[in-house]
């Protein structure tokens, strides 16, 4: 297991079976590729998309 994945799982404190840990290890390279894919140079100065209004409209 990579140090990063081990640290993340330790922090999460999830009860997991050995099969589940093994599955995450197997898929970790794909998840790492996602984390690379979301770091777009074009997003360097972009605002995040999830901006909610300070005051929600109310009924009536």
């Amino acid at each position, binding site marked *: 297991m990579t140090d990063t994945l081990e640290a993340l799982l330790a922090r999460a404190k999830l009860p*997991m079976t050995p099969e589940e840990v093994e599955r995450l290890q197997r898929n970790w390279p794909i*998840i790492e590729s996602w*984390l690379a*894919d979301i770091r*777009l140079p074009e997003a360097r100065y972009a605002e995040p998309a999830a901006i909610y209004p300070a005051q929600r409209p109310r009924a009536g």
Partner: protein
Amino acid sequence: MSAELPLTIDEAGASLRRRQLSSVDLTRQLVSRIHASQDTIAAFITITEEGALAAAERADAELAGGTDRGPLHGIPLAVKDIIATMDAPTTANSHVLDPAWGQRGDATVVRKLREAGAVLLGKLGLSEFALGYPDPDKGFRIPKNPWDLARSPGGSSSGTAAAIAGGLILGGLGTDTGGSIRGPAAYCGISGLKPTFGRVSKEGCVPLGYSLDNIGPMARTARDCALLLQVLAGFDPADPSSAAVPVPDMLSRLDGSLAAVRIGVPREYFFDNLTSEIEHAVRKAVDDCAAAGAIVREVSIPHAANARAAQRVIMFGEAFAYHEADLKTRPELYGKWTRAQLQQGALFSAADYVQAQRARSVIADEVTRALQDVDVLVTATDWNVAPTFESYSPEARMRQPDFTSMWNLTGHPAMSVCCGFSEAGLPIGVQIIGRVFDEPMVFKAGDAYQRLTSWHTRTPRAPREVQVT
């Protein structure tokens, strides 16, 4: 499937108004089909027969007395079992959800359907919490694809798609966080729309990814989806992400014409990794539209290939936040695939989530620019036809292309309609994407295409029983 009952909401409505059929007769026959198919198609978790017949009687009496609530009056529909209804528990196909959750009353969308005179036949099967994969160990029925019972109807709105394709209901509700309406629609040969984010209230729906979730219509035709969305759409102060925008006439552009409709075909990503059968069917659909007068051009979405990563980080992060306490205290109650999916959400940091939301801004802008000079975009809905249950797993899915989740990320409306069949006789879906809050144009393109073709009129043969292991 038996051919004597109407296949569409539109046809059924006309028969009801001509008194050729009563809502009670239609409801009785469909309930009978549902019971008979529970060991084969297995689309329903709960059948609300008594309430449905009472609603059908009311609908008939009202029509006889001159009260007509509109196109859904007396029409049998059903709801994915992740949406609250007052007459049945809501399970989310899980032993984790508190049974009391579903007893609190109708979700906003369900209330709207009832007010429009619809007859609700029950709660439809789904992937656990709209995320898991079939798990026979958990005791819920597993919906099967009426075109081939050894194959999945897709997920997560599996029951809704299977029930419509199997002739058990005329339409229904699905939910869609990454393709859960459009994927099953494609695999089952029906139509299904993910509306613009905020168009339809999510109040009363168990969340998966708060900023990606949508409730939307599924039916045999684009026109029926438009009839349903007309009723479902509208601002709801009970849903924090509901949009306070006017609801247009969803049928206003259904003129059957593709003349001068501008279709954009993305240059990047969407045609790179799909089977030759799917590519051929989708390109043929585009050619058919062009022959009918549509103007086709290539468009660019430079970061299309990055969209899936951003959607996954956001979806798993939001889902993990919702499920974290239960994953720690009673993980054994989840299906094994649901647990495996949700565990991925523990691997992302707060900074990862924000980076994904910043990538989301960039990609949404690219899509808006791509749609500046065209009316709709067209892609395949899925890279392949419905998989067998044996080959259907989240791990396989992680390694396959994904053409639907991008539009959850950007919020644009997207609909799948049937555009052909594989050599093995399995449906193929084409996806039509529109500008934000321009569902009428998406319906126009889908409806006009369906008037040109007959793929959507095909029905599967009566199914044989199979066992999913």
